[in-house]
C-alpha cells in the first residue's frame, strides 16, 4: 500500500535516518534505563513500514534487502547463542559478562555487557516479525 503524498515522501526522507538512529539509541539505552531491544525493534519496524508506505515496496527492499524470516532466524540464533555460551564456561544459562573497556585514544571508560548481544537479537526478531506481518497484510490488500 503506497500513499502518493509529496508531503509524506519528502518528510520521510528526513525522518527515516532519525528514526533508525533513535531505534538504536533506545536499544542501547535499555541496559540501565527504560528502552531495550523490544522497543528499539518496534521503532525500527515502524520506520521501515512507514518508508514502505511513502516510497513503495521496491524502496523497502533496498533498505532491508533480506527476507524477514532471515532476520527472525538471526535474532533468535543470536539471543540463544549468547545465552548458551556461559554453559560452556561452567556458568548458568543467560549469565552476562560485564566489564569496562577503555577507548584506544581518548581513554574514555566504556561499560559493556554481553547481554547487549541478547538485546540485539531481540531487536532483530521484533524487526523481522513487525515488517514481515505488515508486508504480508499489505500484499493481501494490494
Amino acid at each position, binding site marked *: 500500500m503506497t500513499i502518493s503524498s509529496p508531503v509524506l515522501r519528502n518528510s520521510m526522507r528526513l525522518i527515516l535516518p532519525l528514526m533508525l538512529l533513535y531505534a538504536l539509541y533506545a536499544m542501547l539505552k535499555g541496559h540501565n534505563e527504560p528502552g531495550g531491544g523490544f522497543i528499539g525493534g518496534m521503532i525500527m519496524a515502524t520506520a521501515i513500514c512507514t518508508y514502505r508506505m511513502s516510497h513503495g515496496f521496491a524502496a523497502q527492499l533496498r533498505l532491508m534487502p533480506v527476507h524477514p524470516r532471515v532476520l527472525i*532466524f538471526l535474532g533468535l540464533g543470536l539471543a540463544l547463542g549468547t545465552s*548458551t555460551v556461559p*554453559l560452556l564456561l561452567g556458568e*548458568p544459562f543467560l549469565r552476562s559478562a560485564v566489564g569496562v573497556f577503555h577507548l584506544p585514544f581518548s581513554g574514555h571508560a566504556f561499560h559493556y555487557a554481553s547481554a547487549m548481544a541478547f538485546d540485539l537479537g531481540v531487536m532483530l526478531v521484533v524487526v523481522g516479525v513487525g515488517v514481515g506481518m505488515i508486508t504480508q497484510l499489505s500484499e493481501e490488500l494490494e
Partner: protein
Amino acid sequence: MELENFIILFIVIPMGTGVIGVLLKQRVHIARVLGVLSFLATSALAIGLLVHLRSDPAGILVSQMGAWPAPFGISVVFDSLSGLLLAASSLVALACYVHSFSTVDPVAEKRYFHPMVQLLMFGVNLAFLTGDLFNLFVSFEIMLMASYCLLTFGGTRLQMTQAYKYVLLNLVGSTLFVIGAGLVYGMTGTLNFADLALFVSERQARGEALPPGFAALSIALLLVFGLKGAIFPLWFWLPDTYYTCNVSIAGLFAGMLTKVGIYAIARTFPMIFAHGHSDAAKVVMPLLAISAAFTMFLGVLGAVSHHNIRRILAVHVISQVGYMVFGLALMTRVALAGCLFYMIQHMVVKSCLFLCCGIVERHTGTDDLDKSGGLLKRDTYLAVVFFIAAMSLVGLPPLSGFFGKLVIIREGWRESMWWLSIFGLLTGALTLLSMLKIWSYCFWSPSGESIERTPANMPNTSSLRPAYIGATLLVCVALFLGFGAQPVYEIAYRAGEQLAAPEAYIQAVLGPEVIENLARARAESAALATAAVEVTP
C-alpha cells in the same frame, strides 16, 4: 562442569532446533532428522538425570538463570516431578513427531510445521522446569502460541471455527492468570515457588493468618489451571479441538496440554495455595473432590455415547484427567505419587491410542465406527498394539493403568473419600465398555460394508511405516510402565513426598543463607509496620 547448569538444555535443545528449522523451511528431510535428534536428546537427558538422581539424597537440581540469586532471578528446578514428566513428554513427542511423517499434509509441512512442534515442546519443557509463577505463565503462552499454529495448519473452515473458540478461551484464561500472578506478587512480594512455599509455611508455623483474599486468589488460579487441564466445568473446549486437527498433533495435544494444566495444580497447590490446613485449603479441597467426581464420571459417559473413534478418545482425556484431580484432591504423599504415576502413564497410553486411530483412519478412510470393521484380519499388528494400549487405559492388572488407579483408589478409601473411590471404580468399568466398543466395531466385527478400495483411500503401506514406529515406541513405553512399575513408582513416590513436605524443595532452591536473610528482612518489615501503626494514632 556443574551438572545443574545443564538442565537448561531441555529448553535450549528444542528452541535451537526450532530456530534452525525456521531456515530449513523447504528442506523437509533435514528438518525431520534434526527434530528426531532433538527429541531423542531430551528423552535421553531426562532419563539419564532421573537415574542419576535416584542415588542422590536431595534429588533436586537447581540452576539460577543469569546467576541472579533465587527469589529475585528465575530458578530452573529439576526434581522428581519435573523429571518424570519431562521424560514422558519427550518420549511422547518423539513418537507423535515420527508418526506425523506419515499423516502430515506435505504443503503444511513446508509452512513451519517442524519449528512449531519444537517450540511447543520448548514451552512444555519450560513449564515443567520453571520455579517461578510468572515464568510459568510465559511458558504457557509459548506453548499456546505454538498450539494455535498447529491447530490451524490445514486452514479449513472447520479448523478456523474451532481455533477461534480455542484462542478466545485461552486469552481469557491467560488474562486471568496474569491478574492472579500480579495479585500473588502484591500479597506476598514474591513469585518464586520456593519463596511462596516458605512464606505460607512460615505464617502457618507462627499461627498467623494468610493475607485476606488468599483463598479467592487460589480459586482464581485453580480456574486458570483447570481450564488448561479440562477439569469438570471447564472442559467444553476439548473434544472439538482435538477433532479438527491433524491426528498426530491431536495425539501430541492429548498427551501434553491437559497434563501441563494438571502439573501446574500439582506444583502450586500442595506446596503453596492449599498447604496444610489453611483457609484456602478448606475451600479448594472440596472443590477439587467434587470436580474430580464429575470429571471422571461425566467424561466417561460422554465417551460411551460417542460413535467416532477420535471423539471417544478425546472425551476420554477428560475422564482420565478426573483420576489425576482425584489424586490431587486427597493431597497426601501417596495420592500425589499415584497422581503423578497416572499422569505419565496416561500421556503415553492416550497418545498411543490417538496414533493407532490415525492408522485406522488411513486404513478405512473414516473414523466412524459404523463404517469401519474387519481390521483384525487386515492389520493384526495394529490390533495388538491398540488392544495393549486400550487395556492399559482401562487398567487391566499387569498393565500400566492398573497401578495408578490402584494407588489413587486405595488412598481414597483410606482418607475416607469412599464415594470418590466408588466413582473411580464405576468410571473404570465404563472405560472398559467404551474401549470394547471401539474394539468390537472396528477390529472384531466382519469387514465393514462401506470400505471401497478406490485408489484414493487405498493405504499406502510404505509411507505408513513412521506411523507404526511411533505407535510401537509408545506401546513399548506403556508396557515398561506396567511391568517395570516399581522403579517408576519409587521416583513418583519421592515426588509425592517432595510436594507434600516442601522443605527439601525450599532448601534446594533458596539455600540456607537466603532463607535466613529473608526471615530477617520479613521480621524487620513486620516490626516497622507495627511501629507505623503505633505512631499513626
